[in-house]
């Protein structure tokens, strides 16, 4: 049972952002530290505003040490309303999902967050009135449908001072110039042009104001079907081959309409398959990749592995970790997406073929694949500003429906699908496989994924450029200040101070030495002879294979498959993919050239930083990659300061005092969950509680006890 210490009545006030309003609050709420089954925790106040749910620790004042990495907008005990995934109430030890109206009020509240935090609040000591108000308030504001204009984004934008810094290097793609520059950068301007046909959204509200199309495509044809059936340029490869995307025509019942559409498409294909255009290859992503529904299902199952109530649950699932992981299918989806991106890269790079990605609205999987291909092929996309520009181009301006896909307004569950998260997961695989090739770190990707749920940035809170434009100017006449000035997520100084921002940059990023030495040559395998070995691709039961005489198995699998692989047998298309993949991987990596992810079985991994960061059982004190990263940062600092000193010595610019010895970073043992663990109370749980022994010492205390054994298992 819980020991109630008389809570010290102390006024704690929530820190409110401009435009943030306190909606309801409850005091004497007990927040459990979730890490163990014990009822440890703290008392405090639970508040709900139009921006967040926040828990205010009663003795937060005693929190002396400021964490090294801290989000200035969303604190450790803050949950933005959009970040709430599900809320459960506990009634008599039974968990029940809370959605709309409530008749009974729970004694415990469990909040699962989209960034995978889990909060447990006990309301048993709270006044009944307050319980009612806070629970229904939280459920109402975070779980029920909402109007776009009620998003905190708007209150913040009208109340916050207009402090748009400007000097951001990210290309926003909201002007004609941005598109022209991009065409020029990729040398796509010979065959493609920016058109202004969609000004005033005459063509389609889903398309951006400016689109890039092949030069030979006429304005009429763009207007004809609201931009459907028009190949829209994404990016040009160094050899001139281009990556395009296209919205498919909806399935037509009417025969004549579909005939016309077909004729239209044929005409389009014809014009852009002629020289100077390269050969054309189309890829209908809606049939060659998992559906959005599949993706949503897989992710829902996957995240369940990490939303853990207590450590008992954790250890219960731990035994079957790998098979559980596999059964979610999430990693398999990542693999398929990466594979598709490699296939596209192969067409562009080696076959010099244009590739048109086709999808219903060309704004979901098209965005994933085209972004991935660019990250793999264009080293500019692996810099921070390049990656951000890419997200602007393909996703934000490109018309990905963030609002619907994240279900920010709780309009419809059906539309929800973690498409953008899928991209980040795929990019993470690349970052993790080739760290020196990226200017940003996995922490960058993690905080980017968290920013999906922070409604002070406009970036992820509109479905299209059109929606943003109409809502920026529209009703804002009422407010005196003219159009809203929204913040962009790319201004990282809003969320992090410079010290914390350092964790977003990769100190070991291998900067590009020369601008032109960019692409590697991919030589073909030369094999003179064809060996007639069995080529059976065995997916036979592996379990039996272990005990059978291995020989058969070996010959089929290794010699057959592998020798077969090296032989130039061009009987089926997948082989050209495989050959491309193998040949690339048999050479040393050029971090500024083409980068292909490894996608074989064991290579696709769980993005541990994002998914395991709140699970204390997975924490290592003084361990994890951060242990080396911290060392590297120290070394970097040292090297840089020495370089400065060298320069000074060299130029004989004697300037009285030398640069001070670089500040050593806090050399305390960081936890593997850093930078996220420090947000939580730091704790250490030894394998066997040391307290056992303290008690063994206290003889007097224990003489009267007659328990037969010490049970430590509950904690293990």
């Amino acid at each position, binding site marked *: 049972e819980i020991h109630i210490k008389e809570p010290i009545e102390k006024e704690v006030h929530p820190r409110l952002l401009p435009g943030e309003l306190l909606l309801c609050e409850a005091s004497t709420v007990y927040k459990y530290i979730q890490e163990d089954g014990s*009822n440890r925790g703290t008392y405090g106040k639970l508040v709900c505003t139009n921006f967040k749910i926040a828990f205010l620790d009663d003795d937060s004042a005693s929190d002396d040490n400021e964490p090294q990495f801290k989000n200035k907008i969303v604190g450790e005990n803050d949950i933005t309303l959009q970040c709430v995934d599900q809320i459960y109430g506990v009634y008599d030890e039974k968990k029940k999902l809370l959605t709309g109206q409530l008749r009974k009020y729970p004694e415990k509240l469990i909040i699962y967050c989209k960034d995978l935090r889990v909060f447990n609040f006990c309301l048993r000591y709270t006044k009944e009135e307050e319980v009612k108000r806070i629970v229904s308030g939280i459920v109402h504001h975070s779980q029920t449908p909402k109007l776009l204009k009620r998003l905190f984004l708007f209150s913040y934008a009208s109340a916050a001072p207009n402090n748009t810094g400007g000097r951001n290097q990210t290309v926003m793609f909201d002007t004609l110039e941005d598109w022209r520059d991009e065409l020029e950068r990729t040398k796509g301007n010979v065959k493609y042009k920016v058109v202004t046909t969609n000004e005033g959204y005459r063509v389609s509200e889903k398309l951006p104001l400016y689109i890039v199309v092949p030069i030979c495509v006429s304005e009429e044809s763009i207007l004809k079907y609201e931009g459907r059936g028009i190949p829209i340029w994404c990016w040009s490869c160094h050899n001139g081959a281009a990556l395009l995307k296209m919205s498919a025509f909806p399935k037509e019942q009417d025969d004549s309409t579909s005939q016309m559409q077909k004729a239209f498409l044929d005409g389009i294909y014809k014009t852009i398959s002629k020289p100077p255009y390269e050969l054309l290859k189309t890829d209908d992503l809606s049939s060659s990749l998992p559906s959005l529904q599949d993706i949503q299902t897989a992710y829902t199952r996957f995240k369940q592995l990490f939303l853990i109530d207590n450590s008992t649950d954790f250890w219960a699932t731990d035994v079957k970790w790998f*098979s559980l992981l596999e059964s979610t299918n999430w990693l398999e989806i990542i693999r398929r997406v990466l594979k598709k991106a490699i296939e596209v890269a192969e067409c562009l790079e080696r076959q010099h073929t244009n590739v048109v990605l086709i999808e219903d609205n060309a704004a979901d999987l098209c965005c994933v694949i085209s972004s991935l291909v660019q990250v793999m092929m264009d080293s500019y996309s692996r810099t921070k500003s390049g990656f951000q520009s890419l997200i602007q181009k393909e996703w934000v301006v490109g018309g990905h429906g963030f609002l619907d896909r994240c279900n920010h307004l709780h309009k419809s569950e059906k539309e929800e699908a973690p498409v953008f998260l899928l991209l980040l997961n795929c990019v993470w695989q690349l970052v993790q496989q080739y760290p020196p090739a990226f200017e940003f770190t996995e922490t960058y990707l993690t905080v980017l994924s968290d920013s999906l749920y922070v409604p002070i940035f406009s970036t992820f809170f509109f479905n299209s450029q059109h929606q943003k434009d109409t809502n920026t100017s529209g009703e804002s006449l009422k407010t005196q200040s003219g159009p809203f000035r929204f913040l962009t997520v790319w201004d990282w100084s809003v969320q992090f101070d410079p010290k914390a921002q350092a964790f977003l940059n990769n100190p070991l990023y291998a900067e590009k030495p020369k601008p032109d030495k960019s692409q590697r040559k991919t030589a073909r395998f030369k094999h003179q002879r064809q060996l007639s070995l069995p080529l059976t691709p065995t997916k036979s039961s592996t379990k039996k294979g272990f005990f059978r005489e291995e020989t058969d198995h070996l010959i089929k699998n290794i010699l057959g498959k592998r020798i077969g692989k090296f032989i130039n047998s061009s009987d089926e298309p997948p082989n050209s993919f495989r050959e491309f993949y193998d040949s690339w991987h048999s050479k040393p990596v050029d971090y500024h050239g083409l980068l292909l992810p490894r996608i074989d079985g064991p290579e696709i991994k769980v993005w541990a930083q994002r998914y395991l960061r709140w699970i204390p059982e997975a924490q290592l004190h003084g361990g994890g990659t951060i242990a080396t990263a911290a060392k590297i940062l120290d*070394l970097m600092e040292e090297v840089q300061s020495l370089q400065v000193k060298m320069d000074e010595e060299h130029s004989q610019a004697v300037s009285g005092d030398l640069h001070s010895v670089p500040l050593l970073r806090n050399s305390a043992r960081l936890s593997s969950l850093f930078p996220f663990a420090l947000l939580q109370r730091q704790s250490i749980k030894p394998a066997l509680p040391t307290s056992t022994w303290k008690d063994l010492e206290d*003889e007097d205390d224990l003489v009267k006890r007659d328990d037969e054994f010490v049970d430590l298992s509950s904690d293990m």
Partner: protein
Amino acid sequence: MNGAAGAAFAGLPGELVLEEAAGARQRCGDGDGDGDGSVPGTLLCTNRRLAFLPAQAPRSRAFLHSEYDVALPCIRKLVAASSFAKPKVLTAASTLKFIPEELAVFCRDFRLLRFHFQENGLAPQAFRVANAIAQAREAAAWLGDSGEGHGGWSCPAEGPLEDEEEEDEEEEEEGSAATLLFESLRDWEKELERLGAAGWRVSAVNERFDMAPSLPRYLWVPSGLLDHDLKRTFAHFEERRVPRLCWHHPGGGDLLRAAGFHAASEPGSEDVRCLEALLLGGRGPCVLADAAELPTLADIQLAHLKLRALCLPGAAAEEKWLSALEGTRWLEHVRTCLRKAAEVASLLAGRRCSVLLQEPSDRDLNCLLASLVQLLGDPHARTLPGFQSLVQREWVAAGHPFPHRLGLLRRDSPREEAPVFLLFLDCTWQLVRQFPAAFGFTEAYLLALHDSSFAPCFSTFLFSCQRQRGHGSPHRPRSQTYRQVSGWRDPEAGAPGAGRAARGLPPVWAWGLRYSPQQRARFRNPAGAAGAAGPPDTADPQSLGRPADAWPGPGAGNVFVLAKGTLSPQPFPWRSGRPPPRLARWAPSLESLGERGGSPGGSRPPASPPGLLLPCAAGPSVRLWRRCYLRGLPEAQRGRFAPSPAGLAEELTLLQDRLSAWQARGPRTEPAGSPLAPSR
């Protein structure tokens, strides 16, 4: 003695080239291969190994080139393929009847080497070399315990090594910290001193191996126990392997290991006194940690076989790979070992007590557990020389039957094969991966050790115990330390003939024999703890419990058993069936502890003692050692060694050197004052 390639091929003394085929190509070598991913060269079969001499390679100084060599016993399977016949597995009994175009060598260390023969008139050679390998492999099986079956291996240190030592020498900085082999009294004394284990002494009671044949010559036993009394205890343990000290925690805890109590022994009262003096010795309570929860030898072997099968290309569909991995249970075993070691290590760190690791034979999982606990608790064991000394003490000297467990023997008894040592290396790798900044060595080093365990040209893994190793030379009074990498050294080499009669094979720690300086440079972790050579962190009084005298004297003598994370009182088998009366009140319920710690807004839990690593054994944190196990996959052959911060560290040194050069010349002399400067 060599054939045509003899000029380029630096063989071992007594090594004969049986067959060779020039113009072969090795596929997917690790070098910067040409476009087609193969390296041309000559394939040799000797009576020792299969060797490949790359045609253009600069004359390699390492006489056993690690990348292109396979020792014959390390070959697990040999398959020949041709376009005109079915691929065939070659054994001594079933020889080749066609001319092979490709030869695939499956190694026990998870490598897969593939040799390709070109057509231009070399066919007969290809045929002959393939058959020769199959025959030689059979003939080369190590005879093992008979002890005499050396097959003519003799000391390579005398031969081709001489000329290369000079060059290697200056590169080795860390030479001061030598690896202790634990063959001499001095090594045992030195290490005991480092541990600061007051109350323990080195006993030479087993100097002639007459007390316990499989135990080392010297044992660490309580100072208060005379050899005369110690002798009474041997009979009461399996294989006469008595409890002895492995490690002493600076906070007072002791780690001991022993075999199981002898089932039939019924110690008299005098014996009981000696036994209890040995086990308890007034040092506080004793916790027995047995190997019951750990995997059995059969489990380990089965899991390893399954893992090996899974790691072959195409063994499991990609989307089923993870559950297949789970099905091997290898990682489960790794996790169990890590968890158990963490329990023991935190017991030792948390309170002054002794933990006795008890395994029926004391020769397998005790080795693993004892070493793991020390890796977790002792920063010295995490340095490179410290780790080598650890392996030397807890495995080699302690009598782990390497030849049996690694399956290096002729098929005498396949049941005894169980790669316990490889399991230990995997556990160590997990620790290195989880705590990259805590170790002085790298994954590359572990990989080298993994591979070398199959190479029969090192003395380290060829014997089952010290007695066997020293067979024929009962006394070796010299302190035989091995100085890292610079080759096998005898400090008293001046005395002619003193030790030459003994086994002349170098220990595996002579890395210079198989690995180039560049490769060895990757053994050391620049980001790792800079060789904390002293005793482990001195006890922090707050976290390490009270000093020794706080333990109630008369209460000492408690015995607990650690099982399933639970401590329960347990009598020694020679005591009466009931627990001693005092014990009951020493065992509090833990439920109360939860409450106590759980006071709302409670104080922070205790910080972890410095120097103690507590690994995470949860599913997501224990990984597959892919650079080791997936080497057979062509996809995985690239980038075997991860990019390391070594380059950065080098740049730093360079800059510092230049800066000091500048400063030396310039008028102002400002100390660089960098706390990070590598202490060279």
